[in-house]
């Protein structure tokens, strides 16, 4: 799940201050689940903005709307019909949604109300933890399901750095378990310790340029 959190109110306020009629669009997907940009959060933000701006004697005309997913244009029909009524849009979707909205309505300023922070899992209500940085070259098979990119402070691929503390925590931050110590423990429990001996070559880090893909089974439909 993509996890996001709301930007500081001051920052959002500065984005929309000068606009007469604003639409705040929430997303029924990831940002609803991570309690950052769903219907409730859209209403809350609108109330917060109105209250804050009224103390500066600015009356903000802001409406609320939610579409199920801001990363697929199939869900945009209702938004298409209302966009002409607004000077600006706040999107409470993840970075993907904000850009998708902006691309569809290039003449309307679209502002992100959230910072998209990571791909993670739900630990408990409101508590999310990063697990994946979408590097595109998953090594979880060899590391017993523990990601060295997100869990190792130095992003090492070939075993611990030698700075592991005696209690198994990371020398950089003692609240963080040493990822490679955890990997070693788990591989040992699974009887797959030979994986830790395998040398992985330097990573090409291909997640720094824009990626795009067509699933193998669906390539045929695009051959004319």
């Amino acid at each position: 799940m993509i996890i996001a959190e709301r930007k500081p109110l001051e920052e959002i306020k500065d984005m929309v201050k000068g606009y007469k009629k604003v639409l705040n669009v929430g997303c029924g997907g990831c940002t609803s689940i991570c309690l950052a940009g769903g219907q409730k959060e859209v209403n809350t933000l609108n109330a917060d903005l109105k209250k804050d701006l009224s103390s500066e004697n600015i009356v903000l005309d802001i409406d609320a709307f939610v579409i199920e997913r801001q990363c697929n244009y199939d869900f945009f029909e209702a938004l298409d019909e209302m966009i002409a009524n607004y000077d600006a849009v706040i999107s409470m979707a993840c970075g993907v949604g904000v850009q998708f909205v902006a691309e569809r309505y290039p003449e309307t300023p679209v502002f992100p109300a959230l910072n998209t922070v990571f791909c993670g899992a739900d630990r408990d209500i409101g508590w999310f933890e990063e697990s994946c940085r979408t590097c595109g070259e998953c090594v979880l098979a060899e590391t017993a399901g523990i990601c060295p990119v997100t869990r190792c402070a130095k992003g090492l691929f070939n075993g611990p750095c030698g700075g592991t503390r005696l209690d198994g925590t990371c020398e950089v931050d003692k609240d963080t378990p040493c990822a490679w110590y955890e990997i070693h423990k788990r591989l040992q429990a699974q009887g797959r310790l030979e994986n830790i001996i395998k040398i992985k070559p330097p990573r090409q880090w291909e997640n720094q340029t824009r990626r795009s893909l067509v699933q193998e089974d669906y390539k045929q439909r695009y051959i004319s």
Partner: protein
Amino acid sequence: MNEIYGLVRGPLALAAIVVFVAGLIFQARRFFSLTSEKPIVLPPASLLGKIEPRSGPSLDAINNSMLGVHPFLTVITTIFHVCLIMLPIFLLAHNVLLYESFGFSLFVFPELVANIITVIVILGGVFFFLRRIFVYRVRAITTLYDYIILLIVAAPFLTGYMATRQWFDYDTMLILHILSGEVMLVAIPFTKLKHGLLFFLYRYLMRYEHSLGSGTRVWSYSKSVK
């Protein structure tokens, strides 16, 4: 009896056919007015790599299609529908009437073949009826309407078969057959039976994952297609 026969075989038949054809045209036009062409954007060739155009569906696609998931049902329904559509068009008796009214006729089935096809359609109707009653998930969404439609479709074939076999009074059976056929014709464009037309329009023209054709149309009642 003769007056009733004259009525159903004459003006009522013509009226039913006109309503049927006009109704289908109306439904097709409505379909086109509710949808629009959407320009297709292809991904860059670099994303596709070296893919050879395949002539037909892959084995995977077939396994995941209706044929792969419901092979028995797919075969039965295909045979049922093909027979259902072909029989009225290529039946000898209907073509005799066509010739008497308009001076031309089409290719006709031999009578034995026509009888077999009729029985297939009737058995298909029985199959779907039983399926509606005994298959739980079908029963969960079945209403009285579904049974009535099934009856409307089965009636012309049942009465037609009974008429040719001369079971019960022939004249009565014949009039019931013609009347039930007219009811079915009129019902087709205005009930769920219009799926006969829509199946082809949807599956070949609409753009979605399972479309059979190139699929360039999308729902755009609000006409804001980009």
